[in-house]
């Protein structure tokens, strides 16, 4: 299972980085979204993988998954959402003002 998760994280990272290196804003935003999935899974996995033991006290289970990475990922998801919302709006603004959706605008530097 560990190999599966590590492999998936790696694959998502690779896809995210490749898209983030494209020249148009929309694929870049999609790439950053994939990259944030990869990062969230990575951060989450740092509490190791635990099946069927949610950290809710009083469920009568013999143990609990480490709640810390879960809380960190929750914060990271929210911040990632704010960033995605901002960058896609910036992409629209750039499209309107620069006349192209290329990341460097119509006239490349």
């Amino acid at each position, binding site marked *: *299972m*560990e*190999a599966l998760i*590590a492999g*998936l*994280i790696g*694959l*998502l*990272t*690779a*896809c995210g*980085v490749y898209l*983030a*290196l*494209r*020249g*148009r804003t929309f694929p870049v*935003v*999609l790439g950053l979204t*994939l990259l944030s*999935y*990869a990062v*969230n*899974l990575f951060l*989450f*996995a740092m*509490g*190791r*993988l*635990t*099946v069927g033991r*949610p*950290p*809710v*006290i*009083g469920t009568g289970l013999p143990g*609990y*998954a480490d*709640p*810390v990475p*879960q*809380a960190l*990922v*929750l914060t990271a998801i*929210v911040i990632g*959402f*704010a*960033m*995605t*919302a*901002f960058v*896609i*709006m910036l992409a*629209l*603004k750039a499209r*309107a003002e620069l006349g192209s*959706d290329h*990341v*460097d605008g119509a006239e490349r*530097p």
Partner: protein
Amino acid sequence: MSLVALAGGVLLYAGRRPLYAWFDRHGDRLDARRLYNHLVDGLHDLAGAVTRGLDGGGLQRLVAVFVATALVLGLAGWLGTDSPLTGPRARLPADGVSLLAAVAMAVAAVAATVLHRRRFTALVLVGAVGLVVALAFVKFSAPDLALTQLSVEVVTIILLLLALYFLPQVSPAESALGRRGRDLALAGLAGLGVAALAWAVLTRPYTGIGDWLVAHSVPGGGGHNVVNVILVDFRGFDTLGEITVLALAGLAVYAMLERLDISGQGCDDGGRAWDSDMHPVIMASLTRLLLPLALLVSVFILLRGHNLPGGGFIAGLVTAVALIMQYLANGVAWTHARLPANMQPVIATGLAVATATGLASWAFGRPFLTSAFGHLDWPLVGEFELASAMAFDLGVYLVVVGATLLILINLGRLHDASHAAPPCADDKEAAWKP
């Protein structure tokens, strides 16, 4: 030494006549001021060449350099040691369902990457990846994360869909083969590096602060859902920063879109005009019926968050989605007539509530954000636990609703404005121009 100087002097004296003659012809060039100017101009040209050489290229170069630097540094850090890649920790066996989900995610991610030029398709595939991520959270004991991931996923995809309306539907193929090869190599190496790091950590044992937090969650924090207690209590300060980020995003988007003049396209790639019937009747009446129910659910999620999966953030997103549905189904005009359009006071109130909750503990001689909780007997409801952390969570809820709606409403307004544009212009590129 002095002999050499003497000899030089003699030589100079002996050759004085040709030297004088040369100086007569070229002497004005030795003017110190001109020499200085030549030197400075040369330096300036050199600096220009060096800077252009380093600084050429746009964003793609910036990102590529960053990825490459991270790769080199990460690798160099590891290579200096003799740690094995795999640690001694016992591993979980993989089961069939997980394998299937992993394959689905991998296929969707790769397909989104390969098909990225067809933007709508790629967006749907990215959404599918996000859903499998939520499933992974369910599988590995993180119900709060699964709920959050799901609700964020919905809002993100709606947002990207609305935005895609204003962007070209396809990306042109413009990267040269060499560029794509370079990017593929960089991306592959980055993926390998992150996977190796994840593997190295996952196969090693550790002892974290988690056990202490689990032990103190009920007696110290007054909540059974440890993740929520961490968010509103143990690490409540992180959450305060996080909602500030969200508020900032809302305000920055608002400031940015204020004078934005953009029109979407009135027709698809085949030149067919888009359906102008914006608000299907069934959807409109259904969402109106569903709104009270959805609001009730979000209050429920907000209240139970301290003890069971839920909390202010998820509740806020559920409310936001319910309200956005009104916009989608009934239109901006209909909804504005019934809902205050200005979300900035909501954001400000949310942040003020969260901060005031934190400051209240000063009155009791405690540090910022110290929580208090007690049990309350409500008639009909029965015993109910009331924690100051809930007020904090209410602040989180308000900021989430306010910021999400502020962004989406402004985007929706752009849509309404752009519907006034002629539906199907001859020149597609012209139709997109501001």
